[in-house]
């Protein structure tokens, strides 16, 4: 099997035996299918949000009142950077034989993810302090739910990463862990894509 060939969806695992590549095919494909299903969830939450942001204000705050573009900008930068660092981790997994660079890039990813969640939590607390709770209106319910669901996904990704950090040290799991890192990478990049949609529809439209 040549290195150039695209053996399965995503960045190939790199220097392992052909059997590992063969095993990767269905597993990666299955994960793509799962991601499609998960994207439907976000699409529906976005659709709900867009309906609620017009018709669910109920005399409460409008999208403009709850949009903090500066904070959203920082969050976007953090999340995009974390996708970049995860990309570097994937490349390190493919081309480097030692683990160290890959682990380093993943640690960076995790830190950026945590920082993102921190900013998001700060946003939520700020809104709550201003009395803009999700119970206030349909619009705020949708706002918190959409962002919360994305944040929950990011948290799940972080827990997954933590489990993988442990598993990298468990002998006998190497092949499985490599495959899992590939899947986590797909998941992480998808959350970025979703975030771009959120940035557009929640924050940029909200500020306009």
């Amino acid at each position: 099997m040549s290195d150039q060939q695209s053996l399965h969806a995503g960045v190939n695992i790199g220097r392992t035996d052909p059997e590992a590549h063969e095993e990767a095919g269905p597993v990666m494909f299955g994960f793509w299918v799962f991601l499609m299903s998960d994207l439907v969830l976000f699409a529906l939450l976005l659709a709900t949000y867009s309906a609620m942001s017009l018709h669910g204000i109920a005399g409460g705050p409008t999208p403009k009142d709850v949009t903090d573009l500066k904070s959203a900008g920082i969050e976007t930068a953090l999340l995009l950077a974390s996708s970049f660092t995860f990309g570097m981790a994937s490349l390190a997994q493919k081309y480097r034989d030692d683990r160290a660079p890959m682990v380093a890039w993943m640690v960076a990813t995790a830190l950026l993810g945590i920082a993102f969640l921190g900013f998001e939590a700060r946003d939520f607390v700020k809104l709550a302090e201003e009395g803009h709770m999700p119970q206030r209106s349909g619009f705020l319910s949708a706002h918190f739910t959409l962002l919360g669901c994305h944040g929950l996904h990011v948290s799940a990704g972080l827990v997954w990463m933590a489990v993988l950090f442990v598993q990298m040290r468990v002998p006998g799991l190497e092949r499985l862990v490599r495959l899992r890192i590939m899947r986590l990478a797909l998941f992480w990049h998808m959350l970025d894509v979703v975030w771009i949609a959120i940035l557009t529809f929640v924050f940029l439209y909200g500020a306009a």
Partner: protein
Amino acid sequence: MNTHDLTYWLFGNLRWSDFPPKSDLIATGAASLVILGALGVVVLLTVTRRWRWLWSEWLTSLDHKKIGIMYIVIAFVMLARAVVEAALMRTQQAVAINAPGVVSPEHFAQLFTTHGSVMIFFMAMPFLSGIINYVMPLQIGARDLTFPFMNAVGLWLTGAGAALVMVSLVIGKFSIGGWSGYPPFTELPFSPGEGVDYWIWAVTLSSLGTTLTGINFAVTLYKERAPGMRLFRLPLFAWTSLCTAILMIFAMPPLTVATALLALDRYAGFHFFTNDLGGNMMNYANLFWLFGHPEVYILILPAFGIWSEVISTFSGKRLYGYKSMVFAVMCIAVLSFTVWLHHFFTMGQSANVNAVFGIATMLIGIPTGVKVYDWLLTMYGGRLRLTAPMLFAVTFLFCFVLGGLSGIILANPPVDFSVHNSLFLVAHFHNMLIPGTLFGMIAGYMFWFPKAFGFRLEETWGRIAWGCWSAGFLLAFLPLYMLGLFGMMRRTAETFRAEYAPWLWTAWGGAGLIVCGLGALIVQLIVSIRRREALAVPVGDPWDGHSLEWWTSSPPPEYNFAVLPKIEETEAFTAMKRRGRAYESPEDYADITMPKHTGLPVMIGAAGFVCAFALTWHIWWAAALGLLAMWGGVVARSFRSDFEHVIPAAQIERENEAWLARARATTPVDRFAELDPANRGKAVERQ
């Protein structure tokens, strides 16, 4: 902390009064039946010392065949429950003319809610998941699904949901909000009890399980086909499984979103669907039917696949118009996502919107018509054998056309305005669901039973079951078309028009016949088990089948096929038989790796049940514990790498050669003698 706080902390909203005995006799009876049933199973297992066997052979198995059978067991148990509820509802409506009848209005509302929810989520869905699980990997020449562990998790999540609905008969009450759970009625102010929460979590568990299962089916169909099994060589049932799986992947998330948002409203005071503060129940209607309409095709497509197999096998012919069948299924799958709005024509959108969705709805009639013609043309000129599954197919063809016509009528928004929510609608959807889905599942069960257990089902009782179900269906549902046109609304516990009585009593008689039909199925199973020696078909091909599942012993070994076949055309097994290669020994055998048994999926299901039950009753600590245990199970699994065991080539060779020797030594019987005890599982076309 005072004692009241402490009990709330420990037991949430659970009170002694939520336990039996219940307020009325019928509810107490139902609760006792559940308890007695559960006790009966426990005692039976203990007396026959089958606990260990049950655990190690079945519950912990990751074998797609066993998982399939367990799904079907769940489906039958839940079918029995929901049919009894249906009969009770028919009794109520027949006697409650200017009279209160046998159950209270609230109890009646629980009955139609549980009946509908159980029939859809815990009877039809497990049934079709079970049959696809059993048959599809065999048909495509695979050893298992791509993700066996996930498959078991899907089963046990569904099982947890079903258990939750059963428990609701004993502890507390179920929802009275209908199977579709429309807010604002299902919001806290109007439904403050635990009922709606039971409904939310039961449905959520099963829809999560179904999403996982759908992903698994689709990936298996793309990735695990035997060499040479191109997509256009797949048997039709495999094709419908693929389209069903794709529908599951895209249609279940809307349901999960709908129930999750409803839960946020109820538990956290959000305002998605409330009447006030910006909530809007139309968002729910859209989300729910974005799931709900594709759902009816999830229910019916596998049955279409079964009809294709049954009709072509028992007509002794190739399926007429294979490609048109495939394209029709694909069209239906796509169109099913474009019509959800016909479920709320009357809820205030513009006439243009209604017109667009009305036309889109009618379009589905075209591919469906193609399929009906293809089935008819498959039978035309064939050498028909009217076995029980085939008889069900004939009933299906007649009734389904009728149901389809009433659907086209309803797709016309002005007409829908006048019969909306009447018994006309109830007649229409049962007309689709019973001959379409349920009869398909029963036919599939009878058709593949000999494959799964090594002996045929007894034919006479099969025909009696067919007679009762068919006549019962016609009697029970045709009058409802009339009642609907007369103006009798659905979900009514009491009416005031004496002239309804004859129609309602006819429908009651039909429901009685259906109960007999269910009884006949049970008797058939018992009689068949008793006579299993005479009905045995160990060679595995009792109906002169076309596709690969018939090319193994009955029951098949854990690994399905000793060596994977190379496929060169459609109807792979027929081709092998024609060339005289079906029972040749393969050149060499190799080791096969299969997944090991594991108890984790059962535990994940149990944790899911605990979490859902605790959420229903607001027992927060147990809910958190259950959720943690579910994910803990998944993480624990990920720390293991030894999930496979190897079956040595020598053992496979021994088993396979034994089967081949037996097959070669068995005298073939003529297809028309397939019901004869002489049929040991090798039926052939008359020469």
